[in-house]
């Protein structure tokens, strides 16, 4: 008895495009691609028509023309005679500056707040809870404006620093907080200061070498070195010694009151301070929550096991809990850094000249190149976030639990 079934006929029918799972996904993708192409073509066509109607063209040549405006905060020299491209670069550097400063301060405050929020001390954890909830549930823009208002309205004017004006400089007359900005001492690099810096950098390198050596030694022999004290000594002693041997080549130029404003020193504008502090405070609340949940994610058994091995509480934290918590903490932490960088575009609110204000603000207003300007601006932010997220992916794959 023949039990064979006939092979289905392999003739292709048109309805298979829809009802056969082998072809359906192809059909859907082709239709989607066509729709996407059509709508893109529609948008591009509209844009071309609109540009033609306005008598504009699409070119980036405006980047090479003279900017004609001043930027009050610049990390590289810039005058109004420079090009728009250089203005954009100044803006980019300003964005990166506030983003970097913000990330550092936000991490410090955030880790502190997150750890303290876990404290058994009711008062401390209560304060931190209030802090975190207040920051997380109000818009960042309000915080920027509040800090800016504090800096400009609640600080004394430079003239109040005169005799009997009621205001005083802090830190042994070296720092002045005024409504024109914060003035800090400026280091003057004299003859031979290069050597001091070089020695300092070398000793920092030596600290890393020492730590590496100490770890190796401990793994091989079990003997521990007083790494912390040695590092501390290495950090300060060689550089200080060179400094005195060379006869104190680095001096500080203190800000001094002259006329209606301070002369000398470095002026940090209130816009930068306000943006920096507000971004850090706001982001630190999110970081605090990340740190807290990261530490809580390490199961209690790990702590108990570590105690059972006879480890001290701080070594338990250092060697058992933190390495495991960091795996949970780092990815969202980096995405908070990304958020902070993007949020720095709120600089607009306080007049800090970041890339949004130079390239995306004054340059666009002066040249009328909205499409090109916003395209460049968007690409800058996109590239920064893609770079940071690719670092994050690298880190993720390096700390991923190796499951076997």
């Amino acid at each position, binding site marked *: 008895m023949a039990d064979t079934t006939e092979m289905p006929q392999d003739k292709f029918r048109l309805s298979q495009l829809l009802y056969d799972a082998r072809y359906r996904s192809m059909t859907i*993708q082709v239709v989607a691609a066509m729709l996407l192409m059509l709508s893109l073509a529609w948008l591009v066509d509209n844009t071309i028509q609109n540009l033609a109607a306005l008598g504009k063209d699409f070119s980036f040549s405006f980047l090479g023309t003279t900017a004609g405006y001043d930027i009050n905060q610049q990390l590289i020299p810039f005058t109004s005679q420079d090009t728009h491209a250089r203005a954009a670069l100044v803006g980019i550097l300003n964005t990166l500056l506030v983003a970097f400063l913000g990330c550092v301060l936000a991490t410090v405050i955030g880790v502190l707040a997150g750890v303290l929020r876990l404290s058994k001390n009711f008062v401390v954890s209560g304060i931190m809870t209030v802090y975190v909830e207040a920051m997380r549930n109000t818009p960042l823009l309000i915080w920027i404006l509040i800090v800016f208002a504090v800096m400009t309205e609640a600080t004394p004017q430079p003239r109040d620093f005169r005799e009997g004006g009621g205001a005083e400089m802090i830190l042994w007359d070296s720092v002045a907080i005024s409504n024109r900005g914060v003035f800090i001492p400026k280091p003057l690099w004299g003859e031979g200061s290069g050597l001091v810096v070089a020695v300092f950098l070398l000793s920092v390198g030596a600290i890393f070498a020492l730590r590496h050596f100490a770890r190796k030694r401990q793994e091989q022999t079990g003997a521990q070195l007083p790494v912390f004290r040695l590092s501390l000594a290495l950090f300060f002693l060689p550089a200080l010694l060179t400094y005195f041997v060379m006869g104190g080549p680095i001096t500080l130029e203190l800000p001094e009151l002259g006329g209606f404003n301070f002369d000398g020193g470095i002026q940090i504008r209130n816009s930068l301070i306000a943006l920096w502090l507000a971004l850090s405070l706001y982001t630190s609340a999110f970081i605090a929550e990340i740190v807290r949940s990261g530490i809580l994610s390490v199961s209690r058994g790990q702590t108990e096991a570590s105690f059972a091995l006879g480890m001290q509480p701080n070594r338990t934290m250092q060697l058992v809990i933190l390495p495991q918590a960091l795996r949970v903490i780092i990815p969202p932490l980096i995405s908070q850094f990304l958020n902070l960088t993007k949020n720095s575009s709120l600089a607009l609110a306080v007049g800090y000249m970041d890339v949004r204000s130079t390239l995306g603000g004054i340059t666009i207003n002066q040249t009328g190149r909205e499409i090109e300007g916003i395209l460049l601006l968007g690409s800058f932010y996109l590239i920064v976030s893609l770079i940071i997220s690719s670092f994050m992916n690298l880190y993720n794959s390096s700390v991923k639990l190796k499951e076997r």
Partner: protein
Amino acid sequence: MSKQSSVAFVRREMLPPAPPPPGQAGVLRWMRENLFSSVTNTALTILSLYFIWSVLASIMPWTLNGIWVAGSLTECREIRDARGLETAACWAVINERWLQLLFGFYPTDDKLLSSLFYAEPLATAGGLEAVFGAASNATDRIEFVGMMKGDLSNFTIFLFGYWRPLLAVALLVVAVAPILYSSLPRSLLFFSMLYPFVGVFLFWGGSIWGPMTVAIGLAAAFFIGRFFAKRFGLLGGGIAAVAAFIFIFLNPLPFIDHGGLFPLFPHVKDVLHSIIPFGLSAIPSDQFGGFMLAIIIGTSGIVLSLPIGILLALGRQSTMPFIRWVCVTFIEVIRGVPLIVWLFVASTLLKYFLPPGSSFDALLRVIILVTLFASAYIAEVVRGGLAALPTGQYEAADSLGLDYWKSMQLIVLPQALKISIPGIVNTFIGLFKDTTLVVFVGLRDPLGLTNAIRATGEWNGIYWELYIFVALLFFTFCFFMSRYSMYLERKLQTDRR
């Protein structure tokens, strides 16, 4: 002799438990264990208490001595000096301007206000028609309304002058409640579906037939689609629904001169309006402002971004490379660029991308961009939920013979969304807070209004009171949202251990 009698003493009743030694119970013990357990902890406690005390000492006198009734900042300062106070908040600015912070320059219903509470002066001025009619004098009207608003209390104006936004927000609560709390009757969901049209009508006004026609048209497209779906399958139904939608709302014959017949729906609206003329005074979007604006942009962004975000997340997980590629590009591009740049795109670039001559409501542009922005973030959150689901769930759905949409709808999404609730709510909170950024594209959000208030002569130089008020408004809403997400997490937690 029994054993019992040989024992000298037997206690017949229980001794009452002895109180714990002092310092080992109650508040004292709790304090010793929590606040003063070690030297560091004690120092920390004392430091924190000092911190709290110094903060309160600097803020409380200012807050509590606040002056509630004054006409200007100078008057506030005079009152403060007359009372001999060192610091005092000038809450009078809130007392006087809270309506503006809530509603911006949204017009009040002056006819209703004057006929209800200002009848006598209205009669003196010549009646409703003489003051507000088409032939009335604009200067006289402004003077009359100014006088009326000066005489009426802010609360009366709030309740009756702004009854439209107020009613719209109240109905919004009714519409949202059955979605948030499943214990409410399900029949309320019908109203939730109807609410977008009711809300648009109340906020923007105009003929009631505008939103009604849209609602009827959408319903018609839906039912036509369902009718065809029963006969020709899902695909036929979908095509029919899209065709019906295009026929009703768009122009199906753009290349043929049809004498302005299409799009159909403005004509239907006009005909219906001529039969039953009913409507409210139309209010253009540029008069919207204040916290109301945050609520409008926030809720529409939240409601619209969730479905788009879920679709994007599914697309990112799709097995079709093209779909996946499109979704990944969209999500990464949107997330990589700050919202403020997108709002900038909405305000300056959108006009280039649309057909020449087409104009677009500024508020609508912002809502669209905010929605797209939030949906990319939602997509990432939902993707996390989809990835966290064990593969067995997907395989189980497949082995039950469910098709893709059924398995997503019945098996995968309910679980994945449950996992993603905290992230989704966090995105919503972020979106709500980000509505303050619309100030940069010229909409009057509460923070922009604080500048407007400060620009007036009376309140020049006032900062903290306004910022605190706005911050508290946002805090209330966002805090409620975060608590709700905790409640939802607890309620949906099925794996109790």
